[in-house]
């Protein structure tokens, strides 16, 4: 029985190579006669979305052809792009869900800055536009369909506790959370995200901003979150857990740390989360509302999570096609389409009136709240050290939340580590 498969081995290997090289040859010859074809990689679009966008683009630009590939989810995206850049096999365009990867891509020397090349940049919301620039150059273009964070609250729990309206400030939220906590029903008032993950930083930053704090100094060289505002912001969370108004257990599940599952299980009555909770199906009888992100002592805030498109150097013709593609993604219709796929926010006013956007509130009732708070939103710094700084930050925040250090100690340590990271890579 074995001997036959011994010969089969070489047959399979040979035919595999024949198939492989034939496919390559056919693909190569197809490119020569057809319009300029370029590839782009995305970690955020499903295959049907890619197909829709590609055909719309090809129709609008007959000389170009877009071929998108869903590569991997965002955690695996970076190793792949890194390896591609290092070996000169990169795609022409990447759609990246982490804007702070852009300075890192720039280090490869193969990122083509978009300064002045994308007119739609000027109609972006100012804070978003600013976040695309690094050392004076625009590294990427914001993709429509960004997300922000709002406050979800369980209406039934509120009614039972006799609270008429959702809290508007963190002070009120703390008071309400204490009232809403019911140990017998295994329910807490609010969920404070626990764990070592980017979400924790992302969710905490607007608390910091709401209290008037900043993440980094204006030059982006030193940490600034260990200020009094920072300590106040972190203490809000620490006290929620200390007062047992928030669970001391982490409800992290499969890499998601936002606590949406805790809210949907009614383990907590309130949670700050993104729009995805809103369009998830809920059982009949589960009634919830969406309110703006709680304001701090300085005012309201939220955090804007942005996806960006970036242009890499391939061939001159492909780069031209890629640039046209990036511009195409910002046209009102396409931008609206992309935003509507994930219930994201349109990133410029001319998309708001598009039918795709107008249809969203019907499916996600809280959509308008998310839209209304965008103007208060901050954006994470675009900085190649952000990954390290964020990791330092969320590790220490988690330590403070679990009670091993005080809030001020945690932030001081995090600032020290962040300064070291920032100094190292410049």
């Amino acid at each position: 029985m074995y001997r036959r498969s011994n010969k089969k081995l070489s047959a399979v290997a040979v035919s595999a190579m024949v198939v492989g090289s034939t496919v390559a040859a056919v693909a190569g010859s197809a490119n020569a006669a057809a319009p300029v074809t370029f590839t782009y990689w995305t970690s955020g679009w499903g295959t049907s979305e890619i197909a829709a966008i590609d055909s719309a683009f090809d129709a609008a630009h007959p000389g170009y052809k877009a071929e998108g590939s869903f590569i991997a989810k965002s955690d695996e995206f970076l190793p792949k792009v890194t390896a591609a850049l290092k070996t000169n096999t990169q795609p022409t365009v990447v759609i990246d869900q982490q804007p702070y990867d852009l300075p890192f891509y720039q280090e490869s020397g193969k990122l083509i800055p978009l300064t002045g090349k994308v007119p739609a940049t000027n109609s972006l919301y100012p804070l978003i536009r600013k976040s695309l620039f690094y050392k004076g150059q625009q590294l990427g273009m914001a993709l429509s369909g960004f997300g922000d964070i709002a406050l979800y609250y369980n209406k039934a729990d509120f009614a039972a506790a006799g609270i008429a309206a959702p809290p508007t400030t963190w002070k009120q939220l703390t008071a309400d959370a204490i009232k809403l906590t019911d140990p017998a029903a295994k329910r807490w008032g609010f969920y404070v995200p626990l764990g070592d993950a980017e979400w924790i930083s992302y969710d905490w930053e607007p608390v910091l901003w709401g209290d008037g704090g900043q993440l980094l100094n204006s030059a982006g060289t030193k940490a600034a979150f260990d200020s009094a505002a920072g300590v106040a912001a972190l203490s809000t969370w620490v006290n929620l857990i200390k007062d047992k108004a928030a669970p001391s257990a982490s409800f992290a599940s499969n890499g998601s740390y936002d606590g949406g599952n805790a809210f949907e299980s009614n383990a907590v009555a309130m949670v700050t989360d993104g729009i995805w909770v809103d369009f998830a199906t809920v059982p009949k009888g589960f009634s919830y509302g969406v309110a703006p992100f709680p304001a701090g002592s300085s005012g309201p805030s939220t955090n804007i999570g942005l996806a960006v498109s970036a242009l890499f150097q391939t061939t001159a013709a492909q780069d031209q096609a890629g640039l046209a593609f990036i511009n195409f993604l910002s046209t009102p219709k396409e931008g609206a389409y992309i935003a509507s796929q994930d219930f994201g926010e349109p990133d410029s006013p001319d998309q708001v009136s598009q039918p795709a956007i107008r249809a969203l509130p019907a499916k996600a009732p809280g959509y308008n709240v998310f839209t209304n708070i965008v103007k208060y939103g901050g954006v994470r710094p675009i900085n190649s050290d952000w990954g390290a700084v964020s990791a330092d930050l969320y590790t220490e925040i988690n330590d403070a939340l679990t009670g091993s250090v005080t809030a001020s100690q945690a932030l001081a340590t995090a600032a020290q580590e962040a300064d070291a990271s920032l100094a190292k890579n410049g």
Partner: protein
Amino acid sequence: MVPGPPGTRSAPPANAGRAQTGRARLIRRRTTNGRGRSVGPRPLALPYLFIAPAVVLTATFSLLPLGMLAWRSLFAGGVFAKSLSYVGLQNYSDALSQGGTQALRVTAIYTVIFVVLTMGFGLAIALLLNVNVPGVQYLRAPFIIPLVVPPVATALIWGNLFAPSGFGFVNRALGAFGLPQGNFSSSPSLALLMVLTFGIWQFFGECVILYLAALKTLPLDLIEAAAVDGAGPWRRFRHIRWPLLRRQTVLICVITTLAGLQTFTQIFILTNGGPNGATTTALFYIFNQGFVQFNTGLADAMGVILFVASLVITVVLVGFFGRGARRDV
């Protein structure tokens, strides 16, 4: 895993064991050089041709990249740096002082417990499956299944099973038995426990397969003789089966140890290395440093450290515990 050579079943019991093999090898040594030349044509290059596919491909796709990595680890500068500055072993000391030591410690603790429990359960189940009771063959298949299912799916389930007090199945079960419940994601030791149990559940099927195959090849006559002499099942195991399994045990131990040292995927999905590095294994540290924090020097250095540690451990395992196996190398 080694089936007995055909024909030795009828030979006297002295055939089972290492002595016979050693003698055969000596004979082989003499006759290969002598006989090979005089009887059939044996191109001098033949052995090299035989081992070429495996060795050349290993060298090209594992060792050569490792060499490139080791070379880069002596320099500072990111992945894309055009000019690299030589820093000697600086990256290594940095890696060890910036979380690397903790990662190695976590890896050591994890691997030791992992190996002991995985091999223990694997052997126990294999022994049970080896018994000739009717219908036992239908009970073999399930143990392969955890090896087969993609970790992405099973890790999600695992995380849900270990959800906080009052919610997750494990906690609800503990509560039902009156035992204290725990928060598996937030407590360092419990998080490690969660990751460990997942690893053991996922991998022990491999030990079951390998041990079962090994058990099936043990000479029955020795064991039956012992049974006739009045030795109970435990004594038969301890004095006959276990010593005979020694060579396979070393192999299985090496495989399991390497699997433990290279734990990564479930850490990523279950805990992301937290809380506060309590479940950061060496490989997770490497990934985190390389692709999240962009500290390529540290990642490279740790990669080399992990490799060297794996090599040393393997040599020790084979040398110390596989005294018989070593003679064959």
